[in-house]
């Protein structure tokens, strides 16, 4: 931290400011929706962005490399969704030393370096899903949880949000299985099938991201259990939306991925311009089911 | 009796084969004891048991009066038993010296550090004692087979073993090199080392052996005094009947029709401007010393290796041969000198190997193999060539060397090739099988097939060939008709190359640095 501090965005005059957006992933639709929002903001505010993320949410080190490469380009600002915020702190400090503003997104960074964070509270959202589950199965019975990843922040937060709420508030509900399908639709399907087979009296299934819930839906369909199980999901996507519409899936939590992407780039632009930005930008989460999914407030949040 | 080694009642079974059946062998200190027998008689197996490579099923080994178990090669080494294997056993990526000292590297300082200077020096000393001109620092992969064989011998000698087993050590060597080897063997014998000498070159035995033990079908047949026993008797003990070496029956004169012509063949510095003609029904011998380039010529004609320049005419038509399949299409077949590496799919059965070069001829629609016909063809050649196999489904890796060679012959006959290049067809093959191969070659020539026979055994070349081409260091140095050819004339053409060992008359170089 002893080097000279260049002006923020030490780029040639006249060029568009450059903002790398480093996300937690890129193949999943959720992240693609974030990307879409970020690109929209880039257009609206006339900045250049790049969007990248590691292949799986376990690859903390790969994300660190990405952050490092991004810093080397001397960007005007950085948008960063930390897979593991503690592991990223040294680099964030470098950014700070170079006067590069950092905007967090998706989940918070345990540090005061980010000037703003555009995020959803995954724990609260999953807890809300738990409340819905309890309500729909009548407050007692067995439920199972299928999560995409055992080690990633979103996976952990959603799992814990759901599981802890059930444990705290609904003593008559038993969580019989928490498994991880890596977001792989096929693996998730096989897992969900085995769990349903092994628990004939299962009443509800919570899938903590799109890949997981599609697996649950496939399992339900393949076992001919449509309507016999309360299925609650997370995120959106075409298949899930159809399932919700048809009633096979009771409903799901959606965040506002496009909003997250948009808001974080917007905040970064404001920071570059020296405008003030709120420390926390809550992009919110929403419960949707077949009754409200065409609601003009909800519909735009549901990516295909 | 000062028996060094006594092996008694040794049994060893491989699947489908009782390789050794109550085998017996004894070795005295200070003798050269030859072990002979047909292919598959069990010579190598017996000696591998002594060297700790295989474990015996039953029987006992007495070494210096004490019964011993030899579970692995290391144990054999520790007892002072060392073996030169029939197949070369070298690490091609290591240098000569590293190969010689593998497993017993002198260490430096901490006990795991290598001292390559020391092994280079020690290897050099060893080579000097053997009058061998070889740089200890070159990689073995860069050596010719002859040199590799010398490295193996040097390695075995370096153990200072009390028992030295040599399984066909001379198969790749020139006369001068063999002479040098014999000199060393005699020296060791005089020092009290017991030497087991396995060879199919029976004429060598008279020169070097003290006693000869004959094996047949895994059994002990008998032991004779090498100086007194007539070779004929050894042969009849080997084959279980008397066979008399037929007089070299010179085949009929071939026609004058040229079936193969090679013009101006060049490849790096291993083939230099080679041109010759092969006529219909002719057996054309290729003589020369190891590394003369005969194999290279054969492989080049066959399309196995790329050439720099040169033209090939088959039946008067110029042909392009870039791959072996081009050669096969033009009716050329090649029987490699190394069957196991280049000739056979060892894990496949006899039938598949026989039709390997001609599967395309046995196809029904959709690429389905007509197994009825492949079996028929396989059966035909098993009978026609008297291939000794329990069944067509036997994997060829379980067959003896001579039998394997016949399977390769069957493969090329099935492929209907009329130009056959036999590279060392009798290498490592016993007398019985040898004469069968000779008959086969004659029959083939009589049927109008044209044959190139590469061989390092002059008697064989002289006996079989209508014409003889001699090569040395990549060029053709002479051509002789059967009538003109003699061993001496061939050798004059063939001996332009520098011999690996310093012969007595070769001036200076390295002085004999051995001192007991």
């Amino acid at each position, binding site marked *: 931290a002893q080097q000279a501090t260049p002006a923020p965005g030490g780029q040639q005059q006249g060029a568009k400011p450059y903002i790398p957006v480093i996300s937690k992933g890129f193949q999943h639709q959720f992240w693609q929706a974030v990307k879409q929002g970020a690109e929209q903001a880039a257009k609206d505010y006339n900045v250049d962005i790049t969007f990248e993320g590691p292949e799986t949410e376990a690859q903390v080190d790969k994300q660190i490399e990405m952050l490092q490469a991004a810093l080397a380009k001397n960007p005007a600002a950085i948008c960063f969704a930390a897979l593991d915020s503690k592991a990223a702190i040294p680099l964030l400090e470098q950014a700070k030393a170079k006067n590069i503003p950092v905007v967090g997104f998706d989940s918070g960074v345990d540090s005061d370096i980010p000037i703003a964070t555009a995020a959803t509270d995954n724990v609260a959202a999953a807890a809300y899903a738990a409340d819905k589950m309890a309500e729909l199965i009548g407050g007692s019975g067995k439920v199972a949880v299928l999560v995409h990843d055992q080690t990633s922040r979103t996976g952990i937060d959603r799992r814990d949000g759901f599981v802890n709420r059930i444990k705290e508030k609904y003593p008559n509900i038993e969580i*019989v299985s928490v498994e991880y399908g890596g977001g792989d639709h096929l693996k998730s399907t096989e897992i969900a099938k*085995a769990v349903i087979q092994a628990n004939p009296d299962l009443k509800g299934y919570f899938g903590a991201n799109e890949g997981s819930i599609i697996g649950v839906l496939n399992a339900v369909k393949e076992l001919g259990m449509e309507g016999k199980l309360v299925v609650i999901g997370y995120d959106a996507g075409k*298949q899930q939306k159809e399932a919700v519409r048809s009633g096979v899936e009771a409903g799901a939590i959606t965040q506002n991925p496009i909003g997250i992407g948009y808001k974080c780039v917007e905040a970064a632009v404001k920071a570059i311009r020296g405008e003030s930005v709120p420390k926390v930008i809550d992009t919110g989460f929403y419960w949707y089911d077949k009754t409200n999914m065409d609601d003009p407030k909800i519909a735009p949040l549901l990516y295909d | 009796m000062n028996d060094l080694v006594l092996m008694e009642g040794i049994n060893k079974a491989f*699947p489908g084969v009782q390789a050794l059946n109550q085998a017996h062998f004894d070795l005295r200190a200070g003798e050269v004891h030859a072990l002979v027998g047909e292919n598959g008689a069990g010579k190598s197996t017996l000696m591998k048991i002594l060297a700790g490579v*295989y474990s015996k099923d039953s029987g006992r080994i007495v070494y210096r009066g004490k019964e011993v178990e030899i579970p692995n090669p290391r144990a054999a080494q520790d007892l002072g038993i060392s073996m030169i294997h029939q197949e070369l056993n070298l690490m091609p990526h290591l240098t000569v010296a590293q190969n010689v000292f593998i497993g017993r590297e002198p260490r430096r300082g901490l006990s795991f550090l290598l001292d390559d200077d020391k092994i280079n020096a020690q290897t050099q000393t060893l080579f000097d004692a053997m009058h061998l001109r070889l740089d200890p620092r070159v990689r073995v992969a860069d050596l010719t087979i002859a040199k590799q064989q010398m490295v193996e011998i040097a390695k075995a000698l370096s153990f200072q073993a009390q028992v030295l087993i040599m399984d066909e050590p001379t198969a790749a060597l020139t006369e001068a090199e063999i002479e040098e080897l014999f000199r060393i063997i005699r020296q060791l014998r005089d020092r009290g080392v017991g030497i087991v000498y396995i060879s199919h070159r029976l004429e060598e035995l008279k020169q070097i052996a003290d006693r000869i033990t004959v094996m047949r079908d895994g059994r002990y047949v008998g032991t004779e005094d090498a100086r007194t026993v007539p070779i004929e008797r050894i042969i009849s003990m080997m084959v279980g009947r008397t066979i008399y070496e037929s007089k070299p029956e010179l085949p009929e004169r071939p026609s004058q029709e040229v079936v193969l012509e090679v013009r101006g063949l060049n490849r790096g510095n291993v083939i230099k401007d080679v041109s010759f003609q092969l006529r219909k029904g002719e057996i054309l011998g290729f003589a020369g010393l190891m590394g003369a380039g005969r194999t290279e010529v054969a492989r080049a004609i066959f399309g196995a290796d790329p050439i720099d320049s040169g033209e090939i005419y088959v039946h008067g038509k110029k042909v392009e041969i870039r791959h*072996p399949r081009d050669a096969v299409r033009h009716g050329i077949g090649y029987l490699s000198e190394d069957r196991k590496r280049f000739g056979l799919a060892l894990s496949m059965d006899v039938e598949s190997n026989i039709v390997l070069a001609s599967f395309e001829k046995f196809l029904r629609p959709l690429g389905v193999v007509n197994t009825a016909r492949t079996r028929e063809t396989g059966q035909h050649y098993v009978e026609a060539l008297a291939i000794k196999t329990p069944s067509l489904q036997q994997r060829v890796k379980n067959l003896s060397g001579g039998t394997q060679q016949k399977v390769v012959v069957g493969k090329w006959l099935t492929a209907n090739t009329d130009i056959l290049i036999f590279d060392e067809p009798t290498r490592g093959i016993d007398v019985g099988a040898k004469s069968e191969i000779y008959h086969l070659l004659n029959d083939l020539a009589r049927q109008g097939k044209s044959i190139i026979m590469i061989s390092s055994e002059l008697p064989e070349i002289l006996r079989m060939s209508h014409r003889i081409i001699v090569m040395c260091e990549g060029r053709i140095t002479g051509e002789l008709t059967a009538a003109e050819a003699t061993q001496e004339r061939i050798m004059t053409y063939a001996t332009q190359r520098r011999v690996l060992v310093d012969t007595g008359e070769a001036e200076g170089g390295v002085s004999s640095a051995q001192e007991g």
Partner: protein
Amino acid sequence: MATREASATTRLSARTLFRSEAAQKLLAFGALIVIFIFFSVVSPFFLTRDNVIGILLATAVNGILALGVTFVIITAGIDLSVGTVMTLSAMTTAVAIAVWGLPIPLGILVGLLTGGVAGLVNGLVISRMKIPPFVATLGMMMMARGLALVIPAALFGSVKPVYFTDTPVFNQITMGSVIGSVIPALPVPNAVLILFGAALIASFILTKTILGRYAVAIGSNEEATRLSGVNVANWKTAIYALCGLFSGLAGVVIASRLNSAQPGLGAGYELDAIAAVVIGGTSLSGGEGTILGTLIGAFLMSTLTNGLRILGVPQEWQMVVTGAIVILAVYLDILRRRAR
């Protein structure tokens, strides 16, 4: 090679005792049966019709991939690209059917061809450029993974799955049940039939056709095969292309089953497929292997996974147990061969 032959030697002595191929197969089957019985005893939910059908279905994709890989491994090669090539094929099938609106059979053909072409490229890189199969197919694995993402990115501006919304019958190809329509008590999904059909074809190709013979010959001794005038380069290319075709078929099956093409799938599938082949007794050093063995290997893996899940073994322990069983299964196979 030296070791292979040496151990071949030592194990030969007992072979005569126990020659029958059928008995060997039974032994291989044995491990599967033991596992089956074990799970049936410890869990009442394991040996139910639906669960067994589930296991069969779960074998389909990995099994089909493993069939293709069997050929490659018999030539002493390897194919690390099967998983992502499968994904790429699923993607092209989806594009053909759901985006271009081609008829379903044509769409399936597109998927198969995609796999075939990827395999062909593998084969050419291996046999013409002489790149070791491990490297060539590793490169293809990366490229196919990228391309499976590039396609939707290029078409829709963002990476996303393609759904077969307008062609519900596409899903029926694997999830419908021809058997079930005849014998209602046996609703075995078509995907299982496809697996068995593919296995029959593979077995036919391996044992009855020239391609199969050359695969074994090349694996047994490539140089000797070349020196027999066989166009080894072309046949090898054909074998990798065949393996690619099977990956293409797996792509169609997974797309049909998931009723969508998921661009991010497929990483790691190659190792499962290879494990199935090796558990099935095909030697990585080439020259031998059977389709039946591969099928058994694939079933063993999916049975194991399913059983551990049904038992509710924590997932981290499932990984540990699976790893150990893979080694154990191969060890049993080695002992079995030593014994024959």
